[in-house]
């Protein structure tokens, strides 16, 4: 079934969403024009991009067609870290109206900046995100993404106001209060991480509140962490709302890179602002549409911090077939996993290397370890299992308990997260091909 063009809610026209339906050839023209402009901007203003392009012998003028993006060098999270804080900015600070930051791998965060124009684009893509999921003026939206340096809270906020809905800027935490507000304020739509919403369903149950009977919530956009179709089914069945997947990352803009429409069959990328490539994470060669690979994104309109060919490490595939909603912008599949071993717990990005650094602070010879992630009632738990060696062993229990505490303390200092440290016997952590599997994510085994 092809829905009416430019028509998210029957009979309503949203001008911002019109771009979602742009004829494909026109969209490619816009993309090429913007790709050439952003490549020139990055080359002229950002030393890192200029040096990399010079090293490859590529000039901005070499970008003649969209596929020429493949001539350009890749960028990674390490580049943002190495140029901390403002090294990738392409405008003077007097043009930057907003800074956000996300967790880095070595304790220093990654800093991103926005011009006033970038802020407007960000608002627009969030508005398109919300319209895709059926939000509109009249909705009362409880925004439970964290406000602050994290892009989630304030990112969603501007778009919710942008569509003329009522925003409740409640941020995360204090679950019982969230439920009270949801009920008393007549909330009709929500935004948060999927695991937090599952937690809220449980909390509501304990408070004797039935989502379907006592609350007016009809829809939610969920993101900032990978989730599964089983989790969606649970959310929709248990709470009676429609749950939509949204995707974004601070390095590119924050939320607002891609979003599901009401068909719930993949996330439409706002291609007029973000150029999508899917590459083989090992060879870095492009893979055909429909095949899985690493998502690589180029910002097409960002002024403050243009990013060329950013390796997201997220594994997905392009879904090139037209969507029943009629949007011409292409879809990516739900993010299934990552090409590195980063994991996200309680909204915080964690690399096993951070846990490794923490363990090394306490024990000079890195012990075998494994990170086990579990979920109970929507709350994530991180357990770090450490194999005890003869060198770490004491005949005194108090010293062994002290060792456990020191491990937990260093992990807390580096990641700002609590970990339950378990000491285990040597050889009990399974090794595949001689190398221990560092992260055991059991969170999706249950909801």
């Amino acid at each position, binding site marked *: 079934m092809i829905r009416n063009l430019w028509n998210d809610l029957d009979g309503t026209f949203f001008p911002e969403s019109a771009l979602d339906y742009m004829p494909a050839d026109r969209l490619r023209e816009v993309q090429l024009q913007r790709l050439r402009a952003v490549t020139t901007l990055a080359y002229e203003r950002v030393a890192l991009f200029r040096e990399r392009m010079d090293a490859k012998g590529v000039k901005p003028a070499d970008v003649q067609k969209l596929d020429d993006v493949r001539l350009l060098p890749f960028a990674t999270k390490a580049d943002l870290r190495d140029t901390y804080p403002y090294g990738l900015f392409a405008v003077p600070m007097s043009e930057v109206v907003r800074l956000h930051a996300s967790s880095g791998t070595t304790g220093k965060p990654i800093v991103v900046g926005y011009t006033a124009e970038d802020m407007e684009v960000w608002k627009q893509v969030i508005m398109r995100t919300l319209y895709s999921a059926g939000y509109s003026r009249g909705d009362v939206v409880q925004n439970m993404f964290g406000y602050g340096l994290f892009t989630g809270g304030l990112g969603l906020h501007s778009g919710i106001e942008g569509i003329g809905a009522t925003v409740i800027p409640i941020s995360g935490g204090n679950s019982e209060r969230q439920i009270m507000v949801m009920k008393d304020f007549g909330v009709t739509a929500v935004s948060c991480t999927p695991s937090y919403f599952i937690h809220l369903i449980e909390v509501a149950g304990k408070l004797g509140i039935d989502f379907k009977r006592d609350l007016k919530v009809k829809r939610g956009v969920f993101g900032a962490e990978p989730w599964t179709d089983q989790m969606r089914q649970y959310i929709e069945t248990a709470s009676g709302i429609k749950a939509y997947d949204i995707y974004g990352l601070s390095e590119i803009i924050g939320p607002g890179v891609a979003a599901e429409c009401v068909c719930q069959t993949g996330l439409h990328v706002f291609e007029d602002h973000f150029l999508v490539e899917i590459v083989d994470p090992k060879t870095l060669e492009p893979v055909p549409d429909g095949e899985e690979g690493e998502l690589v994104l180029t910002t097409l309109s960002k002024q403050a911090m243009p990013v060329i060919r950013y390796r997201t490490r997220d594994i997905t595939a392009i879904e090139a077939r037209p969507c029943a909603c009629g949007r011409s912008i292409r879809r990516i599949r739900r993010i299934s996993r990552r090409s590195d071993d980063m994991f996200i717990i309680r909204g915080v990005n964690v690399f096993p290397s951070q846990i490794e650094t923490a363990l090394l602070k306490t024990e000079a010879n890195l012990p075998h370890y494994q990170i086990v992630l579990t979920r109970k009632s929507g709350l994530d738990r991180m357990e770090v299992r450490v194999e*005890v060696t003869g060198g770490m062993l004491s005949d005194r229990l108090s010293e*062994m308990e002290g060792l456990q505490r020191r491990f937990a303390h260093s992990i807390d200092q580096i990641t700002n997260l609590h970990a339950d440290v378990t000491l285990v016997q040597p*050889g009990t952590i399974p090794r595949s091909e001689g190398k221990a599997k560092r992260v055991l994510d059991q969170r999706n085994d249950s909801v």
Partner: protein
Amino acid sequence: MKIRQISVFLENRPGRLSALCRILAEAGVNLSTLTLAETGEFGLLRLITPDPDKARQVIEQAGYAATATEVVALQVPDRPGGLASVLRVLEENKISVEYMYAFAMRAGGDAVMVFRFDDMDRAISVLQAAGVSVFKSVDLFGA
């Protein structure tokens, strides 16, 4: 004066202790005494054997984490107040007992107990000065 104790790390799960004891039995290691100190999650098995080097080797080869520590074995009079008299010597000299446990065998009708002190050398000298018998390894295990 000091004897060597082997400590082994064990997860607090059914079968872990018996598995280790089986390994030692198969290797012909004789256990003179042992004790298990545990938290909810893990335990430390401390054992005394006539041949601690062999025991440690067998245990480590079986994949366990083990460490050797020095402890002392004291002759404790087998009568009411016997242990109290030994502890009083330590208390008067401000020496702390980290842990202690009993030996399975007896010496001349008296009990033998294994002690770990915060200051092992000073403990030995004050105990000997107070007339407490401190066993040598050879006293306990023969040659």
